[in-house]
Protein backbone atom coordinates (compact mmCIF):
# COMPACT_ATOMS: atom_id res chain seq x y z
CA UNK A 1 0.00 0.00 0.00
CA UNK A 2 1.14 3.55 -0.79
CA UNK A 3 -0.33 6.89 0.24
CA UNK A 4 0.10 10.63 0.24
CA UNK A 5 -1.45 13.40 2.34
CA UNK A 6 -1.02 17.11 1.63
CA UNK A 7 -2.09 20.48 2.98
CA UNK A 8 -1.40 23.27 0.46
CA UNK A 9 -0.63 26.94 1.08
CA UNK A 10 -4.37 27.70 1.10
CA UNK A 11 -4.83 25.32 4.05
CA UNK A 12 -6.73 22.79 1.92
CA UNK A 13 -6.14 19.11 2.83
CA UNK A 14 -6.27 16.05 0.59
CA UNK A 15 -5.46 12.32 0.88
CA UNK A 16 -4.84 9.46 -1.56
CA UNK A 17 -4.17 5.73 -1.06
CA UNK A 18 -3.47 2.92 -3.57
CA UNK A 19 -2.71 -0.77 -3.14
CA UNK A 20 -2.51 -4.26 -4.58
CA UNK A 21 -3.96 -5.58 -1.30
CA UNK A 22 -2.90 -8.74 0.53
CA UNK A 23 -0.61 -11.40 -0.91
CA UNK A 24 -2.62 -14.56 -1.75
CA UNK A 25 -5.90 -12.76 -1.01
CA UNK A 26 -9.16 -14.24 -2.27
CA UNK A 27 -10.32 -12.72 -5.52
CA UNK A 28 -12.87 -10.00 -4.83
CA UNK A 29 -11.43 -9.15 -1.40
CA UNK A 30 -11.77 -5.43 -0.63
CA UNK A 31 -9.26 -3.92 1.82
CA UNK A 32 -9.27 -0.60 3.67
CA UNK A 33 -7.55 1.52 1.01
CA UNK A 34 -10.58 2.24 -1.22
CA UNK A 35 -12.95 2.68 1.74
CA UNK A 36 -13.46 6.35 2.52
CA UNK A 37 -13.24 6.83 6.29
CA UNK A 38 -11.21 3.66 6.76
CA UNK A 39 -8.02 3.82 4.66
CA UNK A 40 -8.45 7.36 3.32
CA UNK A 41 -10.09 10.52 4.66
CA UNK A 42 -9.84 14.29 4.24
CA UNK A 43 -11.93 17.19 5.57
CA UNK A 44 -11.28 20.83 6.30
CA UNK A 45 -9.30 19.85 9.44
CA UNK A 46 -6.97 17.12 8.19
CA UNK A 47 -5.98 14.55 5.56
CA UNK A 48 -5.20 10.92 6.49
CA UNK A 49 -3.91 7.80 4.67
CA UNK A 50 -3.61 4.38 6.39
CA UNK A 51 -1.79 1.10 5.72
CA UNK A 52 -1.43 -2.28 7.42
CA UNK A 53 -3.96 -4.96 8.33
CA UNK A 54 -6.90 -3.83 6.24
CA UNK A 55 -9.53 -5.70 8.22
CA UNK A 56 -8.46 -3.96 11.46
CA UNK A 57 -8.36 -0.54 9.77
CA UNK A 58 -11.89 -1.05 8.40
CA UNK A 59 -13.30 -2.10 11.77
CA UNK A 60 -11.67 0.88 13.44
CA UNK A 61 -12.70 3.39 10.71
CA UNK A 62 -9.19 4.56 11.34
CA UNK A 63 -8.78 7.54 8.97
CA UNK A 64 -12.03 9.25 9.97
CA UNK A 65 -11.23 8.70 13.68
CA UNK A 66 -8.28 11.09 13.40
CA UNK A 67 -10.58 13.85 12.10
CA UNK A 68 -13.28 12.93 14.64
CA UNK A 69 -11.08 13.20 17.75
CA UNK A 70 -9.67 16.47 16.45
CA UNK A 71 -13.20 17.76 15.86
CA UNK A 72 -14.94 16.45 19.00
CA UNK A 73 -12.14 16.09 21.53
CA UNK A 74 -10.13 19.08 20.36
CA UNK A 75 -6.91 17.02 20.07
CA UNK A 76 -3.97 18.32 18.08
CA UNK A 77 -2.85 16.33 15.02
CA UNK A 78 -0.08 14.21 16.58
CA UNK A 79 -2.18 13.64 19.72
CA UNK A 80 -5.06 12.48 17.52
CA UNK A 81 -2.80 10.12 15.55
CA UNK A 82 -1.29 8.64 18.71
CA UNK A 83 -4.74 8.21 20.31
CA UNK A 84 -6.23 6.45 17.27
CA UNK A 85 -3.25 4.10 16.78
CA UNK A 86 -3.32 3.23 20.48
CA UNK A 87 -7.08 2.97 21.08
CA UNK A 88 -8.80 1.99 17.81
CA UNK A 89 -6.86 -1.00 16.41
CA UNK A 90 -7.65 -3.76 18.98
CA UNK A 91 -4.92 -6.30 18.22
CA UNK A 92 -4.49 -5.11 14.62
CA UNK A 93 -1.22 -3.76 13.25
CA UNK A 94 -1.29 -0.61 11.11
CA UNK A 95 0.19 2.80 10.44
CA UNK A 96 -1.01 6.15 9.12
CA UNK A 97 0.23 9.54 7.92
CA UNK A 98 -1.68 12.79 8.42
CA UNK A 99 -1.56 16.54 7.82
CA UNK A 100 -3.62 19.34 9.38
CA UNK A 101 -4.97 22.57 7.90
CA UNK A 102 -2.52 24.48 10.10
CA UNK A 103 0.43 23.00 8.21
CA UNK A 104 1.36 20.21 10.66
CA UNK A 105 2.42 16.71 9.59
CA UNK A 106 2.27 13.56 11.74
CA UNK A 107 2.47 9.79 11.54
CA UNK A 108 2.06 6.81 13.84
CA UNK A 109 2.24 3.02 13.64
CA UNK A 110 2.12 -0.03 15.89
CA UNK A 111 3.50 -2.41 13.28
CA UNK A 112 7.14 -3.39 12.79
CA UNK A 113 8.25 -0.34 10.85
CA UNK A 114 6.54 1.80 8.24
CA UNK A 115 8.02 3.24 5.04
CA UNK A 116 7.32 6.99 5.35
CA UNK A 117 8.55 10.45 4.51
CA UNK A 118 7.34 13.92 5.48
CA UNK A 119 8.21 17.57 4.86
CA UNK A 120 6.91 21.04 5.76
CA UNK A 121 7.30 24.47 4.23
CA UNK A 122 9.61 25.65 7.02
CA UNK A 123 12.27 23.21 5.85
CA UNK A 124 11.63 20.10 7.97
CA UNK A 125 12.11 16.83 6.03
CA UNK A 126 12.36 13.26 7.28
CA UNK A 127 12.42 9.83 5.58
CA UNK A 128 12.34 6.69 7.72
CA UNK A 129 11.41 3.05 8.13
CA UNK A 130 11.86 2.04 11.77
CA UNK A 131 10.71 3.60 15.03
Amino acid sequence: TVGCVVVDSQGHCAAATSTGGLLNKRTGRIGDSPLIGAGTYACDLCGVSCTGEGEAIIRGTLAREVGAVMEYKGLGLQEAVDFVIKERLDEGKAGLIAVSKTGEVAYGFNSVGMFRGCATENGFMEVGIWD
Partner: protein
Amino acid sequence: MAGWAIAVHGGAGVDPNLPTERQEQAKQLLTRCLNLGIEALRSSVSAIDVVELVVRELESDPLFNSGRGSALNENGTVEMEASIMDGSGRRCGAVSGLTTVKNPISLARLVMDKSPHSYLAFSGAEKFARQMGVETVENDYFITQDNVEMLKLAKEADSIVFDYRIPKASYESCGTQVESPIKMNGLPINIYAPE
Protein backbone atom coordinates in the same frame (compact mmCIF):
# COMPACT_ATOMS: atom_id res chain seq x y z
CA MET B 1 -2.04 31.36 6.49
CA ALA B 2 -0.01 28.33 7.66
CA GLY B 3 2.48 26.76 5.28
CA TRP B 4 2.18 23.63 3.20
CA ALA B 5 3.01 20.12 4.47
CA ILE B 6 3.23 16.71 2.86
CA ALA B 7 3.67 13.08 3.96
CA VAL B 8 4.00 9.86 1.96
CA HIS B 9 4.03 6.17 2.96
CA GLY B 10 4.96 2.94 1.29
CA GLY B 11 3.26 0.52 3.64
CA ALA B 12 3.42 -0.60 7.29
CA GLY B 13 4.77 -3.90 8.57
CA VAL B 14 8.35 -4.30 7.37
CA ASP B 15 10.49 -7.41 7.57
CA PRO B 16 13.00 -6.70 10.36
CA ASN B 17 15.63 -8.46 8.23
CA LEU B 18 14.97 -6.43 5.10
CA PRO B 19 18.37 -6.14 3.39
CA THR B 20 20.05 -2.74 3.75
CA GLU B 21 20.07 -2.11 0.03
CA ARG B 22 16.31 -2.63 -0.10
CA GLN B 23 15.94 -0.17 2.76
CA GLU B 24 18.06 2.37 0.87
CA GLN B 25 16.04 1.84 -2.31
CA ALA B 26 12.85 2.50 -0.32
CA LYS B 27 14.26 5.69 1.22
CA GLN B 28 15.40 6.96 -2.18
CA LEU B 29 11.94 6.39 -3.66
CA LEU B 30 10.25 8.11 -0.70
CA THR B 31 12.66 11.06 -1.01
CA ARG B 32 12.06 11.31 -4.77
CA CYS B 33 8.29 11.36 -4.22
CA LEU B 34 8.54 13.93 -1.43
CA ASN B 35 10.61 16.21 -3.68
CA LEU B 36 8.10 15.78 -6.50
CA GLY B 37 5.34 16.92 -4.15
CA ILE B 38 7.40 19.77 -2.66
CA GLU B 39 8.20 21.14 -6.11
CA ALA B 40 4.49 21.09 -7.02
CA LEU B 41 3.51 22.79 -3.73
CA ARG B 42 6.10 25.51 -4.31
CA SER B 43 4.43 26.09 -7.68
CA SER B 44 1.08 26.49 -5.87
CA VAL B 45 -0.40 23.25 -7.21
CA SER B 46 -3.52 22.33 -5.19
CA ALA B 47 -3.45 19.61 -2.52
CA ILE B 48 -5.75 17.27 -4.45
CA ASP B 49 -3.56 17.48 -7.56
CA VAL B 50 -0.38 16.90 -5.52
CA VAL B 51 -1.63 13.74 -3.78
CA GLU B 52 -2.67 12.29 -7.15
CA LEU B 53 0.68 13.22 -8.73
CA VAL B 54 2.70 11.62 -5.91
CA VAL B 55 0.66 8.41 -5.67
CA ARG B 56 0.94 7.97 -9.46
CA GLU B 57 4.72 8.03 -9.04
CA LEU B 58 4.52 5.43 -6.27
CA GLU B 59 2.21 3.22 -8.37
CA SER B 60 4.58 3.32 -11.34
CA ASP B 61 7.60 2.19 -9.33
CA PRO B 62 7.59 -1.59 -8.60
CA LEU B 63 9.13 -1.25 -5.15
CA PHE B 64 5.96 -0.90 -3.06
CA ASN B 65 2.66 -2.81 -3.09
CA SER B 66 0.62 -0.75 -5.56
CA GLY B 67 0.27 -0.48 -9.30
CA ARG B 68 3.32 -2.18 -10.80
CA GLY B 69 4.67 -4.40 -8.00
CA SER B 70 1.26 -5.11 -6.47
CA ALA B 71 0.91 -8.19 -4.29
CA LEU B 72 -0.64 -11.15 -6.14
CA ASN B 73 -4.00 -12.69 -5.29
CA GLU B 74 -4.78 -16.42 -4.93
CA ASN B 75 -4.85 -16.77 -8.73
CA GLY B 76 -1.43 -15.18 -9.17
CA THR B 77 -2.91 -12.07 -10.78
CA VAL B 78 -3.23 -8.45 -9.64
CA GLU B 79 -6.41 -6.78 -8.38
CA MET B 80 -5.83 -3.15 -7.42
CA GLU B 81 -7.82 -0.58 -5.47
CA ALA B 82 -7.43 3.09 -4.58
CA SER B 83 -9.22 6.11 -3.18
CA ILE B 84 -8.76 9.87 -3.08
CA MET B 85 -10.46 12.57 -1.02
CA ASP B 86 -10.48 16.36 -1.22
CA GLY B 87 -10.94 17.98 2.18
CA SER B 88 -12.58 20.99 0.50
CA GLY B 89 -16.17 19.86 0.27
CA ARG B 90 -15.25 16.33 1.33
CA ARG B 91 -15.45 15.09 -2.26
CA CYS B 92 -14.13 11.57 -2.84
CA GLY B 93 -13.61 8.82 -5.38
CA ALA B 94 -12.67 5.13 -5.06
CA VAL B 95 -12.09 2.08 -7.25
CA SER B 96 -11.60 -1.64 -6.57
CA GLY B 97 -10.91 -4.80 -8.51
CA LEU B 98 -8.86 -3.11 -11.26
CA THR B 99 -6.77 -5.43 -13.43
CA THR B 100 -5.67 -3.29 -16.41
CA VAL B 101 -5.67 0.39 -15.32
CA LYS B 102 -2.06 1.59 -15.17
CA ASN B 103 -2.69 4.22 -12.46
CA PRO B 104 -5.67 3.32 -10.24
CA ILE B 105 -5.46 6.58 -8.28
CA SER B 106 -6.21 8.59 -11.43
CA LEU B 107 -9.29 6.51 -12.11
CA ALA B 108 -10.42 7.14 -8.51
CA ARG B 109 -9.95 10.86 -9.21
CA LEU B 110 -12.12 10.56 -12.33
CA VAL B 111 -14.82 8.78 -10.32
CA MET B 112 -14.77 11.82 -8.02
CA ASP B 113 -14.73 14.44 -10.80
CA LYS B 114 -16.56 12.84 -13.74
CA SER B 115 -19.11 10.42 -12.30
CA PRO B 116 -22.18 10.88 -10.08
CA HIS B 117 -20.80 8.20 -7.74
CA SER B 118 -18.10 7.83 -5.05
CA TYR B 119 -17.02 4.25 -5.75
CA LEU B 120 -16.89 1.98 -8.83
CA ALA B 121 -15.60 -1.61 -8.74
CA PHE B 122 -14.57 -4.55 -10.96
CA SER B 123 -16.21 -4.63 -14.40
CA GLY B 124 -18.01 -1.31 -13.81
CA ALA B 125 -14.73 0.38 -12.95
CA GLU B 126 -12.95 -1.16 -15.96
CA LYS B 127 -15.80 -0.02 -18.25
CA PHE B 128 -15.59 3.51 -16.80
CA ALA B 129 -11.82 3.46 -17.40
CA ARG B 130 -12.37 2.82 -21.10
CA GLN B 131 -15.04 5.49 -21.30
CA MET B 132 -12.60 7.96 -19.72
CA GLY B 133 -9.77 6.85 -21.98
CA VAL B 134 -7.26 6.26 -19.18
CA GLU B 135 -4.11 4.28 -19.99
CA THR B 136 -4.60 0.51 -19.67
CA VAL B 137 -2.07 -2.32 -19.86
CA GLU B 138 -2.04 -6.12 -19.70
CA ASN B 139 -2.26 -7.53 -16.16
CA ASP B 140 1.25 -8.98 -16.40
CA TYR B 141 2.65 -5.42 -16.53
CA PHE B 142 1.90 -5.28 -12.77
CA ILE B 143 3.46 -8.65 -11.92
CA THR B 144 7.08 -8.83 -10.71
CA GLN B 145 9.22 -11.97 -10.31
CA ASP B 146 9.71 -11.09 -6.63
CA ASN B 147 5.98 -11.29 -6.03
CA VAL B 148 5.60 -14.51 -8.02
CA GLU B 149 8.17 -16.04 -5.65
CA MET B 150 6.40 -14.66 -2.58
CA LEU B 151 3.07 -16.06 -3.73
CA LYS B 152 4.68 -19.49 -4.10
CA LEU B 153 5.84 -19.27 -0.46
CA ALA B 154 2.38 -18.22 0.69
CA LYS B 155 0.80 -21.11 -1.25
CA GLU B 156 3.25 -23.58 0.32
CA ALA B 157 2.20 -22.25 3.73
CA ASP B 158 -1.41 -22.31 2.53
CA SER B 159 -2.28 -18.94 4.03
CA ILE B 160 -2.51 -15.26 3.41
CA VAL B 161 0.39 -14.74 5.72
CA PHE B 162 3.15 -12.26 6.12
CA ASP B 163 4.36 -9.18 4.46
CA TYR B 164 5.41 -10.38 1.00
CA ARG B 165 8.90 -8.98 1.50
CA ILE B 166 10.00 -11.63 3.97
CA PRO B 167 12.77 -13.74 2.39
CA LYS B 168 12.30 -17.51 2.16
CA ALA B 169 14.70 -18.40 5.04
CA SER B 170 12.85 -16.54 7.77
CA TYR B 171 9.56 -17.58 6.18
CA GLU B 172 10.27 -21.31 6.57
CA SER B 173 11.03 -20.80 10.25
CA CYS B 174 7.62 -19.14 10.50
CA GLY B 175 6.01 -22.21 8.95
CA THR B 176 5.92 -23.88 12.31
CA GLN B 177 4.50 -20.83 14.08
CA VAL B 178 2.17 -21.50 16.98
CA GLU B 179 -1.49 -20.62 16.34
CA SER B 180 -1.98 -17.10 17.64
CA PRO B 181 -4.63 -16.91 20.38
CA ILE B 182 -5.63 -13.46 19.13
CA LYS B 183 -8.57 -13.40 16.73
CA MET B 184 -9.87 -10.76 14.31
CA ASN B 185 -13.14 -11.20 12.49
CA GLY B 186 -13.20 -14.63 14.07
CA LEU B 187 -9.96 -15.70 12.37
CA PRO B 188 -6.47 -16.09 13.90
CA ILE B 189 -4.89 -12.67 13.61
CA ASN B 190 -1.68 -14.06 12.18
CA ILE B 191 -3.30 -14.84 8.87
CA TYR B 192 -3.66 -11.11 8.30
CA ALA B 193 -0.51 -9.85 6.70
CA PRO B 194 0.46 -6.19 6.83
CA GLU B 195 -0.17 -4.84 3.37
